[in-house]
């Protein structure tokens, strides 16, 4: 019960802070969703409901937008989100091997979250860091020229 209350509170806090920042204007929907997604790690249906009330738009409309963009997630994400750049320039400089090692290291396939909630593994479109491919991003940290051998050390930095 307490957990649920706490969750509801953090959801409404996230929504309020987004609306305070961007205003309750339908046109600001994408910045609002980005903001909430960033705070909560994903967009729980309770959050979409709250936003839909405040913006006076239907939930179906909100959901259609939330599900359209890659960076918005309607599924819970792990504590640390690993993004792997799957674009051609990274692919041709050894990305495939890095991806393989990464999947094995966290024991996840694309778009999966580990049962203990620590990791989510997703792919991202080109980050424009092509000069230092292959590139992976964990939370807000980008790692360039990644080799399969480095994966273990990089992941170890996120030990919490």
């Amino acid at each position, binding site marked *: 019960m307490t957990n649920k209350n706490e969750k509801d509170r953090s959801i409404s806090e996230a929504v309020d802070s987004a609306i305070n920042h961007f205003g309750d204007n339908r046109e600001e929907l994408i910045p609002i969703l980005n903001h909430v997604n960033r705070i909560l790690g994903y967009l729980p249906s309770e959050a979409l409901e709250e936003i839909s009330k405040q913006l006076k738009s239907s939930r179906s409309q909100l959901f259609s937008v939330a599900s359209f963009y890659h960076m918005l997630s309607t599924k819970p994400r792990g504590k640390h989100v690993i993004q792997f750049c799957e674009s051609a320039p990274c*692919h*041709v400089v050894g990305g495939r091997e890095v991806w393989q090692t990464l999947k094995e290291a966290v024991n996840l396939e694309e778009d999966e979250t580990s049962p203990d909630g620590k990791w989510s593994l997703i792919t991202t479109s*080109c980050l424009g*860091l092509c000069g230092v491919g292959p590139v992976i991003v964990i939370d807000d940290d980008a790692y*360039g020229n990644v080799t399969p051998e480095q994966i273990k050390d990089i992941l170890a930095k996120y030990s919490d």
Partner: protein
Amino acid sequence: MMKYFRTHVLVCVDPECLSKGAHDILDALNDELVATGLIDEVQVLETSRIGACSLGPEMMVYPEGVHYAGMTVDDIPYIVEEHFLKGRVAQKFILPIKQIKDEELTAPTAKEIRVVLRNCGVIDPENIEDYIAQDGYMALAKVMTEMTADDVINEIKKSGLRGRGGAGFPTYLKWTFTKQEKNDTRFVICNADEGDPGAFMNRRVLESDPHSVIEGMIIAAYAIGARQGYIYCRAEYPIAVKTLNIAIQQAKGLGLLGENIMGTDFSFDLEVRMGAGAFVCGEETALMNSIEGKRGEPRPRPPFPSVKGLWEKPSNINNVETYANVPQIILKGAEWFASMGTEKSKGTKTFAMAGDINHTGLIEVPMGITLREIIFDIGNGIRDNKEFKAIQTGGPMGGCLPKEYLDLPVDYESLVQAGSMMGSGGMIVMDEDTCMVDIARFFMEFTQEESCGKCTPCRVGTKRILDILERICAGHGRQGDIEQLEMLCKEIKQDSLCGLGQGAPNPVESTLKHFRNEYEAHILEKRCPAKVCKALIRYQIIENTCTGCTVCARNCPVNAISGERRQPHSIDPDICIRCGICVQVCNFNAIEIV
């Protein structure tokens, strides 16, 4: 009293260097300087790109002008002691820099010209005064004081500037169409949703010279009579968004944006809008839907954006690079701009070179340069002395051109005629080891994934093409597959609503045209000539070369290799998963792919 520092250390915090640990270097430097008591003598500053981020992290030490690269956190105490304490240059971190040339900042080669990239790395992007010192906002002043709106459009017309987003529509025409519409509200939009994999020309301009884009947009707004503008930047570029917001604030502070610009009665405001990760939003009508807070799906055209664009108002939408060209055209004159390029394609174009080429990175070249000059003179040829096989221009919806096209001039018309396109400027070079069917499959996977799903030919058609290509690569190609692919390509091109669907078949069509024999080898002979497609290759051990050292057997993840010590080993093809580890670990080159 101002502090005096005997030494300044500039650490590059370009996103590429950050990805190689620049933040840790900064922390380590500061810690070490505190520990050695040098913190009051040596100042550490953050700076934009210095040169060779691919060897990063990198830093520059002044007044000596010593350029270090490739150090790790553990090397910092050594550098601090050697250089800052003992005054000796730490040679071992200087060496690698000489071995690489970074096209973005070293002096351009003879065939390059810097127009759009002229300020990149030269000025501090977060300081508007740096830009002003390079003649920044002089063009705007000229427009405000000496030119009418029609004068501006005329000058752009004479210059021959065409859209740098890829389609190459004459810029002055777009401006004229938007201006002609009878409406009190018009918008100016900048498309900074640079989504093509491997293309990061716009990111560089936005992060290193944001004011050139802003100035270009203000001039466009003046010419068409707009009061409000938007820069739509993709969320994958957080640093570009941050830099733009700083630049906009500074321009507002100096009265270059906002009410009564430069004391005239012209007012214009600018806002940055961020995407949320959708490739299709680079399409202009999808982009406008996204700004409005909707799904980024394209709208049917006509009506074109210049008639009914953002919120149904007349809107002029241009690419980052197009706007960045505008101030210089105004300042140096249309004739100067038109003196570069070919008859129909004027000026310069930036490209991002990637793939199997010696010098990857950004270049800026005059239109009309040949692919051969780009690849061999500027890019310094193919890596590892391999043979050139193909170049893909125009991003994931561009075509792959074989060596017969190396002397093709790079301009809008020639590229389209050859079955490719200019696109926003990504170029991927492929060597002899590339399987063209696999490449077509790879790009199809991308466009199929990024199809927004609004129209059926694109949504279903790209999936069908991908299914067939996957089947061919998996060794299950059938008679008639090629004909079916050709039919699908034609239909999707004809019947799709936006550029994504219309362009998606290009990689398939162009590889079918130029590398048909590779498709046939896959389908009819179940053979991958480039030895890439795993289902069609087999690893085997060359008996005479194998020494029986057992390294391969010990490293094989599925125990597919057997053999006695000091006896030739063998690979069981039924167990082998074609991971290639055995080839990597063999010291005697005793494993071949057949």
